[in-house]
């Protein structure tokens, strides 16, 4: 047996990155597949809210070829993607820290960013699934008709504009304990979404809330997405700039909290 060990001269010093990434992504998707409870709300709630508001009040025309139904679909899309980033990816980090999965992975040769990358891919898969369900209902029952380029553009706005909220989710996941993270996420994310006009039109909110809303990332995210239908309250470049700024701030906070956690555990 000794011979097998010594004759087996290592062909490579480290495992090929592609193999690690593929395996880690597969593991993340398997995790979601086996634990639907973790994402069923992110999947079902946007469709449910859309059916409730979009189908009931959606036939009012706001522009040529655009009804309220389109706008509510876009808003619920933003809600779906951002809640997956905050609740699935963000709180997922807190769970991984609490159960010691981070310790075990840290002792392996797997680079830490691969695990995070796989989480983001998993979140992307959930987001696409959730958006697909939403879009199908909107087309089938909500009378939404878009050309392929418009669907593509809407999807791009929904995904790219959500990045600052990934930063928020990670900051919560790296900074808060397993018990505190969901509460904190609800406490920050839900009021912010409401105040930002993600659920109800911003025009219907009280003045002081609207004044605050203009500073919130979820507001600019919603405006970016509504801009697809020409009903944004601000120019595209303005939304993009605000979101980029928030993205930098929130990711900086997330990275800082990640480092602190690493120092506490591994220094």
């Amino acid at each position, binding site marked *: 047996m000794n011979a097998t060990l010594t004759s087996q001269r290592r062909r490579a010093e480290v495992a090929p990155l592609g*193999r690690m990434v593929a*395996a880690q992504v597969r593991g993340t998707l398997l995790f979601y597949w*086996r634990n639907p409870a973790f994402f069923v709300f992110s999947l079902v709630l946007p469709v449910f809210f859309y059916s409730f508001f979009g189908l009931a009040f959606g036939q009012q025309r706001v522009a040529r070829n655009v009804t309220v139904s389109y706008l509510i679909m876009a808003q619920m899309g933003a809600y779906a993607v951002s809640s997956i980033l905050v609740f699935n990816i963000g709180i997922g980090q807190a769970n991984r820290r609490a159960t010691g999965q981070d310790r*075990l992975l840290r002792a*392996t*040769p797997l680079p830490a960013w691969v695990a995070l990358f796989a989480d983001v891919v998993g979140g992307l898969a959930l987001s696409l699934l959730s958006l697909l369900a939403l879009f199908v209902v909107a087309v089938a029952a909500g009378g939404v008709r878009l050309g392929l380029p418009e669907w593509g553009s809407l999807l791009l706005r929904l995904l790219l504009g959500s990045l600052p909220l990934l930063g928020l989710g990670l900051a919560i996941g790296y900074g808060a304990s397993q018990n505190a993270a969901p509460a904190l996420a609800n406490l920050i994310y839900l009021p912010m979404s409401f105040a930002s006009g993600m659920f109800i039109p911003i025009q219907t909110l009280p003045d002081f809330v609207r004044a605050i809303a203009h500073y919130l990332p979820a507001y600019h995210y919603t405006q970016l997405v509504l801009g697809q239908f020409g009903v944004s309250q601000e120019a595209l470049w303005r939304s993009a700039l605000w979101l980029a700024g928030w993205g930098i701030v929130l990711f900086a906070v997330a990275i800082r909290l990640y480092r602190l956690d690493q120092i506490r555990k591994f220094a």
Partner: protein
Amino acid sequence: MEPVVELVRAHKRYGSVEALRGVDLAIHRGEVVAMLGPNGAGKTTSINLMLGLRRPTSGQARLFGRDPGDRQARSRCGVMLQESGLPMGLRVRELVDLFRAYYPDPMPAGRALALAGLEEQARVQANKLSGGQLRRLYYALAICGDPELLFLDEPTVGLDVESRRAFLGTIADFAAEGRTIVLTTHYLEEADELAERVVVIDRGRVIADASPGEIKSQVAGKRVSFDCPQPLDEAALQGLPLRHLELRAGKVRMLTNQPEEVLREMFRRGIEIRNLEVTGADLEEAFLALTGRHTPANGVQTARRPEAEEVVG
């Protein structure tokens, strides 16, 4: 030959607690080393430094001549930690495949499962395994990368007697393949059975580093044990030159450097003695002598042995 893993004057401080106070240790290819010591002695901290899970406050840790955080160095190690978790819902085989992907030259998944004795559980979800099976899964994840060096931090904690014995056999087989193994334990019999080298750590220092036999021979003392049909308390044995005394349900075990004197005095006091046995001290007693303290397990008066352990999990 360059050591596989070494600590050089390694100090580690956590806040005001000095966990390691200058540890020098070099472990070479093919050695099976048991790190032995009471809870909080610094065993796990030593392993964490060797693995790069912690950084020394001063001094150095080297793994295959590199920084322990180096991915090339880590790719040649397998690790079984005391406390770690796994993603829920994944099956045994899936987890082994996942971890195999982290290493450049892993062993076939079937072999890792066979070595860990988990072939029948390959399709079971990890969160549905028993405590013993879960330890075996962590073991499978530690060896699936075909490591030259294997770290096992308290590998048998929480196992019942039977699982422990089977698991020790598993580790011994792996060691027989010429792998280097570093394990921590506070079960002295475990160290005696598996290791050819025992490093005793106490209060952050290495206080002995030798073969199990040599460590035993450092203790001149004898173990005197007998059954006593009459009720016996410690007062009745007052004044005897004992290093350690254990009274349990009519069974008396004592450790002494002067067995003849002890026996003469007991006969003089009229203590009834049956099934008398006088033997050389085993590793456990050597440990008591070395650390000058009672049991490594939890500081109660009786030194617990694996056989006396409650069945946990």
